[in-house]
């Protein structure tokens, strides 16, 4: 392990990235994960071209019809094509997943870095709030926040961001605590660097790797959380097709047209599976000890 790390550090950065890409290529699970994520993004971008039908066009003559050649995944209670709605729904999922996790990484790493770097009473206060937020079930925090900010896509993004920041804060704090006593930090300080420079120019880039991994897996979790909120009637409002809202409407027709629920769920599962596989592989590629992620 040690010799491996030594080798890694003497390789120039550009070659290090080539090696990392090679590592993904040689790891079948990671390749599958990368493939699934790329597919999802592609579908989200080209949903208009790919979808055989409009996502809101109703045709009451074919309500709740089972999967067929014309409608691959059947139709819902308004005769809308489920397949087309799933393709369009991927947009909401990707949008909410990426933006909410991006925001929570921003909040979390800022607070975590400050807590870890300055320590003392600031650290204690921030850590108590972080740990409490982290220990509460995310669905409870998100539900409360949605009740505060209201239903709708943007509100869900804010709620998820304010729910998830704690895990990134914990990660960054731990990393900064470990790194801030390194000799190179001491050297930079004696050269007259300010706290700001040390923290954001020197410590941050070294501390961010585990956060990138956690965030990759986090996007998948955020997509599930969005769908769960949508299922409880607090997500995107109709006729916007979101996977959660589709399933929520479908519950009333569970016995008549189960395909309305089955297919969005499978789409979501494949998505989350992709982010998880890719995240697991990133742990290997970036040489992160597994226990830093807990």
């Amino acid at each position: 392990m040690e010799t491996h790390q030594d080798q890694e550090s003497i390789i120039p950065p550009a070659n290090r990235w080539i090696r990392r890409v090679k590592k993904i290529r040689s790891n079948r699970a990671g390749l599958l994960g990368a493939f699934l994520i790329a597919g999802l993004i592609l579908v989200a971008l080209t949903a208009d071209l790919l979808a055989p039908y409009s996502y809101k066009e109703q045709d009451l003559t074919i309500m709740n019809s089972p999967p067929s050649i014309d409608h691959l995944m059947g139709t819902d209670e308004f005769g809308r094509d489920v397949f087309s709605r799933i393709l369009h729904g991927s947009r909401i999922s990707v949008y909410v997943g990426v933006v909410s996790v991006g925001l929570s990484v921003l909040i979390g790493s800022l607070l975590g870095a400050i807590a870890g770097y300055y320590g003392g009473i600031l650290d204690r206060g921030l850590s108590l709030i972080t740990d409490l937020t982290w220990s509460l079930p995310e669905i409870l925090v998100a539900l409360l926040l949605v009740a505060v900010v209201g239903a709708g896509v943007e509100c869900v993004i804010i709620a998820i961001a304010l729910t998830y920041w704690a895990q990134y804060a914990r990660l960054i704090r731990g990393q900064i605590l470990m790194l801030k006593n390194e000799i190179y930090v001491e050297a930079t300080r004696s050269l007259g660097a300010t706290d700001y420079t040390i923290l954001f120019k020197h410590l941050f880039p070294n501390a961010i790797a585990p956060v990138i991994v956690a965030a990759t897996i986090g996007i998948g979790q955020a997509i599930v959380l969005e769908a769960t909120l949508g299922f409880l009637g607090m997500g995107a409002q109709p006729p916007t097709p979101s996977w959660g809202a589709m399933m929520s409407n479908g519950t009333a027709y569970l016995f008549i047209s189960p395909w309305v629920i089955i297919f969005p769920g499978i789409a979501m599962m494949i998505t989350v599976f992709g982010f998880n596989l890719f995240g697991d592989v990133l742990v290997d590629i970036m040489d992160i000890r597994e226990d830093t992620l807990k």
Partner: protein
Amino acid sequence: MWQFILRRLLLMIPIFFVLSVIIFSLIHIVPGNPIDNLIGPGMTKAHEQKLIEKYHLDKPLPVQYGIWLANLFQGDLGTSIIEKRPVAELLRHHLPYSLSLGLTAIALSFVLGVSMGIISAAAKDTFIDHAAMVVALFGVTIPAFWLGLILILIFAVWLNLLPVSGSGDLLSLILPAVTVGLGGAGLIARITRVSMLEVASRDFIVMLHAKGLGKKAILLKHTLRNALIPVITILGLRIGWVLGGTVTVEIVFARPGLGQLLITGLFRRDYPVIQGAMLLLAMGIVLGTFLADVLYAVADPRVRDQHQ
């Protein structure tokens, strides 16, 4: 040992206060007013004013919090604004359904998860290992509500084996408990596997092999005991996760637990009910974490000694 437990118990007091402040202040930033839902066409401004005064909605927030906290210590959690029944009574009515579901689910996820983890670690890099880990990953990734709906579809509608929903007997507990438990099982299986493999590579296990001890004895007696410690920690930290799963699953199975009480409360903006249910759920989590910490200290003497 007792000192450790006492110290841990005392720590719960500040946690309780911070939690109660967080819950209280979040709820009261909610726009909209529960009184709006009560006002009928025949009501005058005077009526409205009277209701607002009755529920102290005209006072500043810190005062409202003080009144709520003072009543809380007298066992009075307020009265549901919509249902007009004491919140304590509502909680007592709904708690058993959540408690039975939560405990069954935790037990199920522990037994299932640890067994899967052991099998996976013992058969490392074989087909069985890969298959078990794929199942575990799916367990973690499948949203609980969707799994619940699919289980209803398979076991209640197509096979007609179990009731779709309900709250009475043990039969109606099976599907919700499996739904919540599978997610936890996946998580625990993954952690158990990693932990078992880590312990298995340590010197003392290698020594036991060299000594000629049977593989089974090493695996179950020595490796497992040490490997379970991180599993217990994660179980304690993530106990809220399991309880969070019960909230949505209760909606899917129409089980009249705390989750259902909370969600209907949120939709109707019934402040006292939301506060009561959230606080009870949060306290359940804090208590669960405490129990896990104690269990952790029982399992690992090093933790106990550290605190003395």
